[in-house]
C-alpha cells in the first residue's frame, strides 16, 4: 500500500489548536486534527498522547525543541543552544502552498541561506509520519491514516473497469 498511503494529496494540516507556548507537558495537546489540507482524503485525527508515549523525546518528531534539544547532526552545528521557538506546530514553518509564485520568488532571493529547500506542509507530514511508521512497523497505507473522500474516489477513478488490486501492500 504504499503508495497510497502517503498519498496525500490532499492533506491535512496540523492544527495544533492549543498553542501558545507548549513548553510543558501540560500544554501538550492530547489530540490534534491535521485537516487543513483535507480534500481527496479526510483529515487525520492524530493521537498525540499515544505518540508521545511511544517516542523517546519530542525531537524525534519536532525539530524545534520543546524541552529537549535537537538531535539532528545537521541542525546541531547551528542550533545546539538555540532558544525554543514560539510554535512547534508543523504549519508554523512548513507552508501549505510551497510553490506559489510569491514563495518561489522569495526562495530565489535567499538561495544561499539554509532552510531554503524546506518541504511544504503536505510533504512534511508525510515524510515525518511515514518514515517513522515504516521504521516502527506502523500503518503505511493511505487509508490507514485518512479515509478517501468521495471526491478522492472520483479523482483516482476508483470505478475504472478492472477491479482494483490496489489497496494494501506496503512499499
Amino acid at each position, binding site marked *: 500500500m504504499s503508495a497510497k498511503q502517503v498519498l496525500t494529496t490532499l492533506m491535512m494540516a496540523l492544527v495544533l489548536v492549543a498553542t501558545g507556548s507548549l513548553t510543558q507537558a501540560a500544554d501538550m495537546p492530547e489530540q490534534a486534527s491535521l485537516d487543513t489540507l483535507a480534500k481527496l482524503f479526510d483529515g487525520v485525527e492524530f493521537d498525540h498522547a499515544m505518540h508521545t508515549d511511544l517516542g523517546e523525546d519530542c525531537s524525534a518528531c519536532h525539530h524545534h525543541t520543546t524541552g529537549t534539544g535537537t538531535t539532528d547532526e545537521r541542525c546541531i552545528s547551528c542550533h545546539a543552544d538555540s532558544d525554543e521557538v514560539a510554535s512547534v506546530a508543523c504549519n508554523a514553518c512548513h507552508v501549505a502552498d510551497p*510553490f*506559489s509564485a510569491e514563495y518561489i520568488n522569495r526562495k530565489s532571493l535567499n538561495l544561499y541561506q539554509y532552510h531554503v529547500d524546506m518541504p511544504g506542509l503536505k510533504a512534511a507530514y*508525510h515524510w515525518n509520519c511515514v518514515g517513522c511508521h515504516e521504521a516502527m512497523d506502523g500503518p503505511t497505507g493511505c487509508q490507514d491514516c485518512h479515509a478517501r473522500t468521495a471526491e478522492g474516489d472520483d479523482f483516482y477513478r476508483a470505478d475504472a473497469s478492472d477491479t482494483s488490486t490496489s489497496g494494501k501492500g506496503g512499499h
Partner: protein
Amino acid sequence: MSGISRRRFLAASVAGCAATTLAGPKKALAAGSFTGYSDGMGVLVDLTRCIGCRSCEAACNKEQNLPAPDRPFDDQTVFDETFHGGKQKRRPDENAYTVVNRYNPESSDHPLFRKVQCNHCNEPACLSSCFVNAYTKTKEGAVVYNPKVCVGCRNCMIACPFNIPGYSYSSAFDPVVKKCIFCHETRLKNGLPPACVDICPQEALTFGKRRDLLKIGNQRIQTHPGRYVDHIYGEKELGGTSWMYLSSVPFEEVGFDPNPGNEPIINNVKDFLGTVPMVLAIWPAMFTGFHLLAKKRDGHDDHDQDADQHNGEEGGEQ
C-alpha cells in the same frame, strides 16, 4: 549564339537567386545556441522521494481532461506491465501525458519509481524538427504544441530523444500530437505549478525557477552525502531540460539514456543546414559555368543543333 547563351545564363542566375532568397532565413534561425529563458520554470524530480502512488498520473488526467484509464490510478499492478517482449515499460501516449514506472536497480535494496513526461528541453528537438513551427518554447519554460497547424508528419516523434510525444493514430479526421505541456494554459502561465506537482504527497517534484532548482539540487547532493549520485540529469543533457532528475542510483539503472550527450539535437543537423546557403549560392554559377565550358569545348553550340535536329522543327527558334 552568344546571345542565347547569355540569355540562358541569365535565366539560370535568376532561378538561383530566387532560390537563395527563398531559403535565406533558414540558416539564421538555425544558428546559435539557446540555454533557456532566464526566468523559465522547471521541476526537479527527486527519485529518492517518489513512492509510486501515481497521484500525478491522476492529477494530469483530470487537469488535461484525458480519457478514463483502464484501471484506477491507485492500482499498482500497472508497474508489472511490460511491452514488446519485456523490454519496454509504460510510456506517455495520447491518453496519458505522464506515467510512473517502477525499477529494481541493482545498486538499491528497494524499488525506485521514475515519473516520465515531457522534459521541456531548452532547445527542443521536436520544435527544431517541426516544419510548420507547431511547437513553442514559452518564456515560462513549457514546450507547447499548436494542433491547428500540425500536418501529422510525426517528425517530432522521430526527433524526440526521450520518446515523449504520442499521436492519436486512431483519429481519422483530426489526429494530433499529444504530450505534456507543463499545464501551460491552465496553470503555468498563471504562476501556478503543474497539477502533478501540486498533488504529489511527497514533494518528489519540486517546482521552481530552473536556475534555482539547479542550486537546490546541488545543495541536496551536498547536504545528504551518499544519498544521491552526484549528477543532476537534465542540467546539461541535450542542451539542458526544464525537468531534471536526482537519483540515488546510476541513471541507467532507472531507465535513462546514460550518455545522450550535451549537445541539443539540432546541432546534429547544423552541418547540413550550413551547406544549404552554399549550395544555393555556388551551384548556379558553377553548373552554368560547366555548361558554358562544355559548349566551348565542343566548339559549337551543339545543344541547339541537336535540339533542332531532334525536333525536326524550325531552326531559328531563337
